[in-house]
């Protein structure tokens, strides 16, 4: 069956292609279409055909009848003369469109970058990350981890024919590296299977993917890591010491250097080691699987439950499920516990795209309005053209050409501005945009085309309303088109109000979150974070040394820094209340921990100091030893208010004195008294609600040392702390952070996005202002004589402002009334995402309306003030 392509496509070809070539080209394309039809199906074949046809818009084949050329030439002359003559309107027009286009380019590159994550791996379409969700119906425990725990899934490639390879990225904690005397700490160092380099694409500068990790204790560095460690000397074969999970230093040899990992990856690795022994392939690991070609992840996922049943035994109410996420989705879609780095946010991407569309809309409407009104200023010319037989289609073409010319100029300027501001922008967001300039150009062309078509169509439509006779008489003809014009301005107002009020609500919510009472005092607290087990064994020694420094008020230690989620949920059992079956996070603190952080005690006491009366803990080398040790210790507990509520106690006093115990997996802590109940504090960001929490003293699990200082954190203090550390741990790198800064980091990304959105909104308002300014200028010009007479008869500026502004103010009020409920509803839905949120009140809308009124007022005033300075006689005498 031979079929023909959609008629409209051929019609387009006939409009484009020169008649000499048409027959042959059309035949070829139809034949090609039929070939593709069999292979790809109709939609794709048509799409490709369309692309082929567009390729024929070239000088050699383009259909240009003689009279068209002449007309276009005439239009170009007239348009450029007008552009020069009406400088203000031209500048307004181009400036608005340029701004909108520049910001669209910025948004485009940002969005493309955000969506490009991990696509540079050639097999990215076949790579999936495994994640692991554990639920317990009885205790309400439910955590979805970004990584996997254990070794039971190592056999997946053998079990499932669909899975070609499985790669573990483990030992993902900060790792301390010693190069000679120099100490470094790597945030993203992984121990990986050798096959990591055949699954993922890393570019090797020295060494090769096959042999790099083939022998144990090999290390692969990125280029910048290598130059940090070794400067310019050849790093291959050099030795360095890297800490293992238990803090012990092990000697490694550099076998290969890879290029720095691109910025668009969720795994910003700086150092790889091999997994040294096969039996080390266990524990927590970010786990990726490579599928065989032609296999689908669905068939793997379907078989997973039965595999899990074979591998694991769980008790009643427990369930474990494994999930697969495409590698390329991780950055924007995944927000599980313990991601390697905080990902992007899908919603923000949508938000930015919306802003870009709004901006372009506002600019396009400006465009259409200004082009139209200024052509009315040449009503005689229009009239004459009509009398001489110009057809409506030719008028329309005139506007298309004009819009195209202006939009083209704007696009060129915008591209130049974008090119020069890009470095600053990248500096601001903190990474290099990875995008293809060719597609940026294509998109810009597409936008220019759309803008031209919309604006040309609107202007063209308006011009059809011209009454030839009146036009010839030189009468004002703008009255005929007022409804459409006003509709457009109203629409612009509406978009501006949406942007302004949404931005204000974003800001209020964000400020609210930043200023929300955290339940603890983060001021004047510094911390040595991410310390190894070896370091924390000497905690008491360090504490003693640190407390001697003047300005240090107190020193404490804990298992997880505030601002970082704990996610170590274990089960609670209370002796006298057998019905209690809840789970709670465990935070281990030195006994002065709650004091140092100013956490409010609702009842009872802090952990008793006598807990500390135990011998310095012994060398504990493996999990079993740690488990046996922590299970043998005496306990006292504190709980937070959420835990208290979850357990069903009405008042803190009721909780105090009960015997409880806490257990996670096969680690069961001894029974102990609940000695105190603390008020809830925000361990995590304010996006999360506060989980039940149990606090106990277990130094084996300490990882961070907190130091409360008496004053602002000074340079001397920093140095004193650093030298104290170096005295005790000459071979251990340290990481000294300020708690308040660490806290701010939580919201850094969001803050930047918010700043960007605010800038965009400001620009949108400015563009709207430009448009309005132009429109009023025109309106006033049309009524010069009328206003002059009014002034002669004694009107003052206020009255004239009222007269001219009435129309616009009415428009603004109407759009406010329509828009406010919509925005109100939408933003309430958005705010529901937050555990702690503001309520929308009228303020944001009031401010938005105020902004609008100010814009209107200022543009009116500027004009009227200007025209007010001209002697009315001049205006009346003109003609």
């Amino acid at each position, binding site marked *: 069956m*031979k079929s*023909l392509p959609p008629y409209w496509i051929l019609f387009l070809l006939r409009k484009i292609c020169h008649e000499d*070539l048409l*027959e*042959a*080209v*059309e*035949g*070829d*394309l*139809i*034949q*090609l279409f*039929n070939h593709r039809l069999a292979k790809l199906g109709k939609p794709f074949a048509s799409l490709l055909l369309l692309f*082929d046809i567009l*390729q*024929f818009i*070239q000088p*050699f*084949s383009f259909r240009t009848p003689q009279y068209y050329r002449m007309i276009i030439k005439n239009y170009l002359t007239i348009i450029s003369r007008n552009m020069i003559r009406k400088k203000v309107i031209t500048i307004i027009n181009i400036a608005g469109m340029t701004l909108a286009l520049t910001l669209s380019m910025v948004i485009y590159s940002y969005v493309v970058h955000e969506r490009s994550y991990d696509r540079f791996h050639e097999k990215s379409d076949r790579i999936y990350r495994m994640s692991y969700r554990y639920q317990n119906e009885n205790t309400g425990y439910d955590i979805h981890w970004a990584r996997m725990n254990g070794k039971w899934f190592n056999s997946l490639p053998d079990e499932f024919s669909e899975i070609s390879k499985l790669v573990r990225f483990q030992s993902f904690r900060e790792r301390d590296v010693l190069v000679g005397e120099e100490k470094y700490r790597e945030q993203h160092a992984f121990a990986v299977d050798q096959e990591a380099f055949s699954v993922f694409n890393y570019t090797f500068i020295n060494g090769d993917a096959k042999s790099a990790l083939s022998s144990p204790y090999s290390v692969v560095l990125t280029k910048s890591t290598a130059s940090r460690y070794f400067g310019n000397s050849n790093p291959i074969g050099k030795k360095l010491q890297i800490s293992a999970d238990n803090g012990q230093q092990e000697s490694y040899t550099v076998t290969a250097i890879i290029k720095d990992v691109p910025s668009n990856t969720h795994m910003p690795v700086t150092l790889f080691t091999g997994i040294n022994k096969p039996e080390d392939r266990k524990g927590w690991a970010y786990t990726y699987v490579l599928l065989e070609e032609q296999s689908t992840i669905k068939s793997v996922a379907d078989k997973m439950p039965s595999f899990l049943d074979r591998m694991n035994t769980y008790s009643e109410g427990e369930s474990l499920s494994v999930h697969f996420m495409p590698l390329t989705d991780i950055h924007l879609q995944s927000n599980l516990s313990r991601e390697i780095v905080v990902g992007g946010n899908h919603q923000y991407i949508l938000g930015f795209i919306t802003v870009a569309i709004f901006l372009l809309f506002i600019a396009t409407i400006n465009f259409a309005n200004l082009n139209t009104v200024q052509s009315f200023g040449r009503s005689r010319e229009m009239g004459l053209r009509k009398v001489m037989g110009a057809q409506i289609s030719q008028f329309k073409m005139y506007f298309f050409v004009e819009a195209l010319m202006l939009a083209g100029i704007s696009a060129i300027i915008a591209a130049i501005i974008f090119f020069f501001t890009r470095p600053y922008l990248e500096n601001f967001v903190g990474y290099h945009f990875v995008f293809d300039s060719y597609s940026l150009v294509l998109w810009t062309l597409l936008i220019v085309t759309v803008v031209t078509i919309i604006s040309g169509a609107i202007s063209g439509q308006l011009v059809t309303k011209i009454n030839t006779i009146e036009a010839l008489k030189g009468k004002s003809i703008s009255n005929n088109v007022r409804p459409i014009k006003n509709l457009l301005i109203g629409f612009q107002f509406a978009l501006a109000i949406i942007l302004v009020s949404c931005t204000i609500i974003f800001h209020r919510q964000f400020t609210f979150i930043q200023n929300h009472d955290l339940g603890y005092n983060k001021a004047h607290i510094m911390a040595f974070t991410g310390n190894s087990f070896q370091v924390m064994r000497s905690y008491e020694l360090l504490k003693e040394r640190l407390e001697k420094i003047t300005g240090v008020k107190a020193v404490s230690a804990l298992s997880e820094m505030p601002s970082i989620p704990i996610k170590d949920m274990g089960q609670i059992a209370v002796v006298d209340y057998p019905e209690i079956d809840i789970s709670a996070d465990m935070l281990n603190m030195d006994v002065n921990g709650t004091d140092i952080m100013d956490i409010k005690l609702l009842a009872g006491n802090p952990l008793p100091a006598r807990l500390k009366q135990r011998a310095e803990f012994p060398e504990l080398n493996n999990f079993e030893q740690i488990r046996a040790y922590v299970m043998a210790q005496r306990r006292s507990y504190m709980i937070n208010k959420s835990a208290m509520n979850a357990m069903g106690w009405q008042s803190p006093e009721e909780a105090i004195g009960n015997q409880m115990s806490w257990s996670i997996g096969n680690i069961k802590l001894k029974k102990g008294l609940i000695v105190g109940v603390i008020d809830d504090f925000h361990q995590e960001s304010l996006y999360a609600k506060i989980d039940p929490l149990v606090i106990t003293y277990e130094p084996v699990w300490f990882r961070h040392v907190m130091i409360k200082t008496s004053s602002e954190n000074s340079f001397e203090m920093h140095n004193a702390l650093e030298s104290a550390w170096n005295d005790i741990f000459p071979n251990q790198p340290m990481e000294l952070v300020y708690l308040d800064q660490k806290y701010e980091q939580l919201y850094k990304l969001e803050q930047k996005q918010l700043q960007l959105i605010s800038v965009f909104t400001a620009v949108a308002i400015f563009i709207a202002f430009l448009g309005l300014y132009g429109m009023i200028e025109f309106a006033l010009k049309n009524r010069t004589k009328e206003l002059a007479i009014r002034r002669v008869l004694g009107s003052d500026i206020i009255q004239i402002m009222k007269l001219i502004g009435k129309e616009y103010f009415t428009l603004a009020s109407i759009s406010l009334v329509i828009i406010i409920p919509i925005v109100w509803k939408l933003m309430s839905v958005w705010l529901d995402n937050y555990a702690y949120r503001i309520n929308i009140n009228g303020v944001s809308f009031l401010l938005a309306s105020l902004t609008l009124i100010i814009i209107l007022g200022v543009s009116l005033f500027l004009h009227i003030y200007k025209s007010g300075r001209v002697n009315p006689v001049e205006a009346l005498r003109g003609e």
Partner: protein
Amino acid sequence: MQDKGETNMKGTSLGEFEELVLLSIAILHGDAYGLSILNELDKRTGRKIMISSVHKVLVRLEKKGFLDSHLGGATEERGGRSKKLYELTMNGKGVLSQSKELRNNMWADISQLVWVKE
């Protein structure tokens, strides 16, 4: 006027793509039209070529006088449209053999040592 100058200058040297198109036309002898030339080039070079670029070169080569064309060979597959069938003119054949000769001469003058593996 300008056209003429260009023709003369280009007339002596063929672009690579132009040469490939001329050769394809010679190979396809009698059945050389836009799409068949495209397919031939695709088959031989493996390059992804736009149909528009083929037509563009054909128009140019015909203007230069290397090609002659006539319409014919409409089929159902083409929706009843005729093909524009191209054949080489004397000039076209001349320029092709000229280019071949040039290459042959140059090849003959390459020392065998160049090909010795290092």
